[in-house]
């Protein structure tokens, strides 16, 4: 189905099932341990051998020799895979560094060997017996030091690395009120609960891999490219995923090493990446340095806005596109952005939840707070004043729907924003209390998405697509979509996901999963409705599907009757025309935070949080809310504690486990509220829905930072906002 004109009334608008806050249909399986993860698939392979990954001890250089003898002779060891015996390997399109290193080493903890043994403990113990000699090369590990020679990055497919509109320099110089400030965000680790894990089994030259992966189709192709196999010889299966946050958009060393280990061992092998290996072996969100300049008239109108971002990556890696939202979010006639990329020999930087916007808004939304302060304006009013309903770089291009102002107004009202005091002036016992806010913004991307739907003789529906559910609620919203379309109850729909033999979806990433995959199911269901009508001899254009029955004029039949002996099936995909070129499609939020800062110790406690979101139709308010509160939690982490600490001498992330890399715990997370504006976006897709999973994160950290400023009167521009950065700037204590 081609979607090239805005949606009109369609069966989804009935909202009998869609739009209702159903509990996740996979929830009982998750909570009873009957939703097996890749590492637990003993139902499909019994007695697999265990692989243990050895990571490189240096960040850059080469292996000069490897002594495997002791490890080979250790109890239970079946085989050891290294670059020496793995055969020639290719590289996946979405991978930057090689998944198996040697002799060249590209980053710390790059996999250099897989020990396969009868038990996990044997493999781990043998891995410690491998002696590797390295020749270490001097690498570049410090973004701040590499910044000045970093060139402008290559253009991304839909993100130019240098943009300019009007006369930024002139307008900024002439602006009566100006801000020119530099902000930094650190490297972040996804730290999802389920570590990377895969189990591989070969039949001839075909391999099946049970894994934990967000994007099945491109990952299948990347496995094939790495192993030099035709795509058809690779099958990935990933029905349940214990979190990914972008870390599992790509295949990682567990996938390839499980496959290589199984081939070499001649038996199925499973591999999980041990937690302390993950931060350096896999990808992370790259740190950024961001310079923001904003010029405004005394009345608060922005006349010039410029945002430059620096990040680093391995050669051939991509930049963190932190400036992109600044091209779209606020009005202003004169604008510029630039994305610069340094070559660093740290592990590979890549997508993490809301890549670009998450760190970009961490900086931009503090800058907006700072200049509002200089203007003596309320930051909510300042943003409303500079709202735009069109793409500011191309005013002929309107937003499909942009309700940022409504989000901000409603948020301010519900949060009690009017009670906010002057910086450093609200005291509650030994605590300084403040409120902060930020705008949230994340684009809504359109991507082709396919699905197959079946009707059986009981009138039940089965949906198949290679879409994934990374804990987000995909199973549930796809079931809701099919139930609405076919006029059956939610319990009559079975959803099967995460198998590369199913129709291709865009997978879970970039908050494009929900809107596109439900639209794909919508398209397939439209086809199935036609097939049903035809089978029953009904006219398809006036046929109604409700309560398990199909009605056309005065004729009516049970849906099950159309199935016949063999059932009916239909397959289709949603494809898009150029509506997203004619319109800017984005999602919006107002984030509000109250935080208290201990006036003695500088400890920060977030007290209340509110997100008001405008993201088109909300397909399931319960799963959507869960996404947003999870994202708000991640925003608190980014604001207050998350940081991969770089050893700039040796080139690695030092705090590479969950004891050293801190994410929020329950005690950090206070009262959270989420409000969704009641809206639809018919230009987006037939579901009239967009995404929320990343919107919920975008802007949160800045809202926390701004609340800390309002509490203390002390501005911190370097994340995370830990007390060492402002303690001595707090008022003296006795």
């Amino acid at each position, binding site marked *: 189905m081609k979607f090239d004109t805005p949606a009109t009334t369609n069966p989804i608008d009935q909202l009998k099932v869609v739009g209702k806050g159903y509990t996740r249909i996979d929830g009982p399986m998750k909570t009873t341990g009957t939703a097996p993860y890749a590492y637990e698939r003993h139902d499909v392979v019994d007695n697999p051998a265990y692989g243990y990954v050895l990571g490189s001890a240096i960040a850059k250089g080469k292996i000069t020799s490897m002594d495997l003898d002791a490890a080979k002779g250790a109890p239970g060891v079946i085989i050891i895979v290294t670059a020496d015996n793995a055969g020639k390997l290719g590289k996946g399109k979405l991978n930057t560094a090689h998944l198996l290193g040697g002799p060249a080493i590209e980053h710390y903890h790059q996999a250099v060997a897989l020990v396969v043994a009868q038990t996990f403990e044997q493999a781990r113990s043998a891995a410690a017996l491998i002696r590797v000699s390295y020749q270490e090369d001097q690498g570049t590990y410090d973004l701040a030091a590499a910044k000045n020679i970093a060139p402008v990055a290559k253009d991304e497919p839909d993100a130019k690395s240098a943009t300019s509109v009007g006369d930024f320099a002139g307008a900024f110089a002439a602006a009566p009120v100006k801000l020119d400030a530099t902000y930094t965000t650190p490297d972040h680790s996804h730290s999802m609960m389920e570590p990377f894990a895969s189990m591989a089994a070969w039949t001839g030259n075909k391999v099946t891999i049970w894994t934990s992966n967000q994007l099945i189709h491109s990952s299948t192709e990347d496995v094939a490219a790495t192993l030099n196999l035709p795509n058809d010889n690779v099958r990935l299966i990933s029905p349940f995923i214990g979190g990914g946050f972008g870390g599992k958009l790509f295949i990682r060393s567990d996938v390839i090493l499980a496959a290589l280990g199984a081939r070499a061992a001649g038996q199925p092998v499973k591999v999980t990446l041990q937690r302390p290996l993950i931060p350096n072996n896999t990808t992370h969100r790259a740190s950024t340095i961001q310079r923001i300049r904003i010029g405004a008239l005394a009345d608060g109108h922005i006349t010039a806005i410029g945002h430059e971002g620096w990040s680093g990556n391995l050669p051939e890696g991509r930049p963190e596109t932190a400036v992109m939202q600044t091209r779209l979010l606020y009005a202003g006639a004169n604008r510029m952005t630039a994305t610069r990329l340094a070559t660093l020999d740290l592990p590979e930087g890549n997508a993490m939840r809301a890549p670009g916007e998450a760190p970009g808004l961490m900086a931009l939304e503090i800058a907006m707070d700072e200049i509002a302060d200089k203007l003596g304006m309320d930051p909510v009013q300042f943003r409303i004043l500079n709202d735009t309903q069109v793409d500011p770089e191309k005013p002929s291009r309107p937003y499909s729907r942009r309700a940022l102002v409504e989000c901000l107004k409603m948020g301010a009202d519900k949060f009690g924003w009017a009670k906010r005091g002057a910086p450093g002036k609200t005291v509650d016992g030994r605590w300084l209390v403040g409120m902060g806010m930020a705008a949230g913004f994340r684009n809504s991307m359109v991507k082709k998405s396919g699905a197959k739907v079946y009707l059986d003789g009981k009138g039940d529906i089965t949906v198949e697509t290679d879409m994934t559910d990374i804990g987000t609620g995909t199973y549930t919203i796809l079931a809701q979509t099919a139930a609405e379309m076919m006029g059956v109850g939610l319990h009559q729909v079975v959803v099967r996901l995460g198998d590369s033999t199913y129709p291709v979806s865009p997978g879970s990433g970039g908050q494009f999963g929900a809107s596109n995959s439900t639209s794909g199911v919508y398209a397939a269901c439209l086809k199935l409705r036609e097939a049903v009508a035809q089978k029953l001899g009904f006219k398809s254009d006036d046929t109604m599907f409700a309560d398990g029955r199909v009605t056309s004029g005065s004729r009516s039949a049970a849906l099950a009757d159309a199935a016949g002996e063999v059932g009916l099936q239909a397959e289709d995909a949603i494809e898009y025309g150029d509506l997203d070129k004619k319109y800017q499609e984005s999602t919006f939020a107002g984030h509000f935070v109250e935080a208290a800062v201990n006036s003695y110790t500088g400890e920060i406690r977030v007290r209340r949080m509110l997100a008001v979101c405008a993201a088109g139709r909300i397909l399931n308010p319960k799963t959507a809310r869960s996404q947003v509160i999870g994202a708000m939690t991640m925003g608190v982490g980014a604001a207050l*504690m998350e940081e991969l*600490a770089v050893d700039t001498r040796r080139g690695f992330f030092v705090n590479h486990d969950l*004891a050293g890399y801190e994410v929020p715990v329950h005690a950090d997370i206070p009262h959270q509220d989420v409000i969704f504006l009641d809206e639809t976006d018919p230009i987006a897709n037939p579901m009239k829905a967009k995404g929320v999973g990343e919107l919920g994160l975008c802007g949160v950290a800045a809202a926390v930072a701004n609340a800390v400023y309002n509490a203390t009167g002390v501005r911190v521009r370097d994340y995370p906002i830990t007390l060492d950065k402002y303690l001595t700037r707090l008022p003296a*204590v006795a």
Partner: protein
Amino acid sequence: MKPFTYERATSASAAAAAAADNPGAKFIAGGTNLLDLMKLQIEAPSHLIDVNGLDLDKIEPTQDGGLRIGALVRNTDLAADKRVRKDYGLLSRALLAGASGQLRNKATTAGNLLQRTRCPYFYDTNQPCNKRQPGSGCSAIGGVTRQLAVIGSSDACIATNPSDMAVAMRALDAMVETIDPAGAARRIPVADFHRLPGDTPQVETALQPGELITAVTLPKPVGGKQIYHKVRDRASYAFALISVAAVVQPDGSGRVAVGGVAHKPWRVEAAEGEMPHGAKAVAEKLLAGAKPTDENAFKLPLVERTLAAVLAEARA
């Protein structure tokens, strides 16, 4: 993890004797620290002596009005004990500020005293570390040091002791009771129990090989307001950046020990005379001679300000 043999000890003296017979042996209590280190091969005992069955899990009054805490009393039980909560609130609060509920259910009094540093380089076996591999060098010096020691450190090691419980015990003048392989018992003041790193950071305590901790005793209650303030990067389940354990008497005198700043709980009795004069005066003496790094210099004002918070709370 290296293969190891295992036995269950039947008595304290037998456990100590068994340890002497097996030079590669370690005692295992809750296992919450030892097993993690064994998985990373930072500890690689050839033999484990499980002491959990020993009858060392009681809290009993002592003759002189104090409390004797068995080596195997779980952190949860110790923190919840009515006598501890009433007379040694500092200890209870320090315990509850540590780890998580699940860990405290397993963790024992002796194991807690002997938990090893959380220096990140100690945990990464690719990196030189004098504590893990004597003589290999210290990777932390010149590296990421935000969590590490500001005082009492050496050119060989700048690690900190991570225990919260030990800081409270230091302020309360606890005494560690042990038995050695020959069956001889001795008492070690907690002040002398943990060592500074010097040239031998691998030697962390005064225990001799095979010596088993049987109990920790607390002298009779000292009264006062007992406050434990632990400052960390998140609200719970994190090791201290610094912590302050204080006993403050109504006249403003008292005691103070600090965690997160040194290789052992840090207490300077001479500084305590300044308590009536406020946090600044105490901190100046307590931290005299500190040698922080650029990354952890904040710990000095943080100790002072946290102590000020504690004194204010005691006054309130």
